[in-house]
């Protein structure tokens, strides 16, 4: 190779190295840090698919502020440490907003990283502590358990006249957080807890748990587990011929549980923050689009992700600029209605902690379908 060739290569390398490290095209980078493998893969893929759907729609309609949106998936493997690394990677890659994850244990670890770097994060997690840590960059896309449990307990006392409850829960951040909020509400309402049965993530055999629930002679059973475990528990409950009514919160009536447990879910009642079967035109429309594209029914996580994507669009358009700090500032105390932004589906408000507030539903599963019994007003 001649000296000249070497010199020109050296110059080319020097120029390329000195260029600022920005993306070439005008794109807004959204990082989707989500459970795509491991125990959370079921909920994570719902979330991812809906997010993809939403941003494809947004891009087709001209993007945000004239810029196209680029979504990158980062798999947390349902592992808190990996999720932290993935958030770090997303920030290094220049993410404008981080979407996810759903598992509370992961969010607890990685939200600190997002906070240190001032990156807004829209999470699907429901454990109460998430918004209680004073992080100004974290926003929920659905209720925390501390908001939904009072609604459910109110229903149990006033409508169902329940005097005692047997509680089945999964022993991780999600399950324990929900169980603690629920039991605290029961105490306030003066309802006895006859049995308190914890189980493991990924547990396969629920025979012993169900015997404990059944022999507790409680008026009702409350189950707070992840989707797959919920399905196994319900099947075992039916197998042992338990007669008490069964109640749950969001996950127990999830579409995934219905798919897995079939008839065993029929008759289960509970409170859901979001459901694809809600009698709301926006949600019905979304569910139809989702099913047409992916050939399966969306669950509440899909709705959360879909609405989250439109939150990014609405707030950024409202600010008139792609700026993380303005995004976080603007979303605190904001109310978005479907009239403002059709993609938001239901009127939703965020408070100063990033907690959401919107209408919610009491549902009963009938013939493998969630049927809305009552729509509960905003808090």
């Amino acid at each position: 190779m001649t000296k000249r060739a070497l010199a020109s290569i050296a110059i080319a390398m020097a120029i390329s190295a000195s260029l600022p490290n920005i993306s070439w095209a005008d794109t807004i980078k959204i990082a989707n840090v989500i459970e795509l493998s491991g125990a959370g893969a079921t909920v994570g893929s719902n979330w991812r698919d809906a997010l993809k759907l939403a941003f494809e729609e947004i891009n087709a309609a001209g993007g945000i502020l004239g810029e196209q949106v680029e979504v990158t998936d980062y798999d947390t493997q349902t592992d808190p440490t990996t999720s932290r690394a993935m958030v770090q990677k997303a920030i290094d890659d220049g993410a404008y907003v981080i979407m996810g994850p759903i598992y509370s244990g992961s969010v607890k670890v990685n939200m600190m990283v997002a906070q240190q770097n001032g990156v807004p994060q829209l999470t699907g997690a429901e454990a109460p502590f998430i918004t209680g840590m004073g992080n100004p960059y974290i926003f929920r896309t659905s209720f925390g358990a501390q908001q939904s449990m009072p609604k459910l307990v109110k229903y149990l006392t006033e409508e169902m006249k329940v005097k005692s409850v047997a509680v089945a829960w999964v022993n991780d951040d999600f399950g324990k957080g929900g169980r603690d909020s629920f039991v605290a509400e029961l105490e306030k309402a003066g309802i006895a807890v006859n049995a308190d049965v914890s189980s493991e993530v990924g547990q396969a055999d629920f025979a012993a748990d169900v015997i404990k629930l059944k022999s507790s002679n409680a008026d009702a059973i409350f189950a707070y587990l992840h989707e797959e475990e919920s399905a196994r528990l319900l099947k075992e409950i039916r197998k042992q011929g338990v007669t008490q009514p069964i109640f749950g919160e969001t996950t127990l009536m999830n579409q995934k549980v219905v798919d897995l447990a079939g008839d065993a879910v029929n008759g289960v009642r509970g409170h859901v923050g979001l459901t694809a079967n809600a009698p709301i035109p926006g949600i019905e429309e979304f569910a139809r689009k989702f099913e047409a594209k992916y050939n399966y029914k969306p669950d509440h996580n899909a709705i959360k992700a879909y609405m989250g994507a439109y939150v990014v669009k609405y707030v950024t358009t409202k600010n008139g600029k792609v700026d993380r700090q303005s995004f976080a500032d603007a979303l605190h105390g904001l109310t978005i209605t479907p009239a403002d932004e059709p993609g938001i589906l239901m009127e939703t408000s965020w408070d100063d902690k990033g907690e959401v507030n919107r209408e919610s539903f009491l549902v009963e599963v009938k013939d493998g379908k969630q049927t809305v019994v009552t729509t509960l007003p905003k808090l």
Partner: protein
Amino acid sequence: MSKQTLATLVAGLAILILLPLTQSNYGVFVLCSWLVYSISAMGLNLTLGYAGQVSLAQASFMGIGAYVTALMTMAGVPWPAAMIAAMVLCFVIGFLLGYPALRVQHHFLAFITLAFNALVVLVLRNEEWLTGGTYGIVGIPRPEVLGLPTQTPLAFYFFVLALFVLMAVALYGIIRSPWGRTFKALRENPIRANSLGVDIRKTTLLAFAIGSSYGGLAGSLLAQLTQFIDPHSFGLTISLKVLLMVIVGGAGFFFGPILGALLIVLAPEFLRFTEGYYLMIYATLVIVLMVFCPTGLLGLVERARAALKLRQNPNATTWEAGR
């Protein structure tokens, strides 16, 4: 140590010092976790690779180390004291866990250590007053070394690197010492070792204790690296991961676990372009490796070297060629 080896080591260290400077924060985080897992795997390599005791409890020692460090530093104890306490406690518990190993071997020992790991996870989860239960502990402080904070990823990396080099040198010393030779004698043929005057009992217990204290230190560093620990992070899967690092890299080779940890920590990165298939590809690679080379990657290198020497000198015995 030959001049050539020394030059390679210096070059390796130079790479370890310079590499993170070119990396993003995420890259530095990955390098950090590689070093941390290397320390843990080095400890297990001593127990498994050199002394031949199968242990599935390395994650539990990482857990004990992590919780001791987290609780003590958060209670105001200076970090060197906390980390030394973590290592000493792991040494003692490892020593005690070694007792069953005096009576049972191989897969029976694997089951005992497996049960121990499950036990530790349950204690960490159920003793909420101490460990915070399922919620774990958040906000573990990073150490301040000689007045310098290690809050930034790069500063913490150099802190971990320093300890990594220290522990590697210590392990090298142990392996070359008479202890190291008795460990190997124990692995190769315990009865013969005993007949030659090796105190099998003491050697087995020490192998466990030293290996465990390495796990404890790795746990300490892991707690400071992620600044969050929960019982789930120290379950059986992590023990299996560390075991895989040792075996893939090459059990009984000094650099085996370091190479194994590199591969296992970085594998998801290398295979990211395959998207959803990477776990399947990864699993297939491990199966293929184990079928064709049960002695791990460094075993493969060793075999290739021996084969080459045999070709150059067909009259040599395999043993001579392997030297």
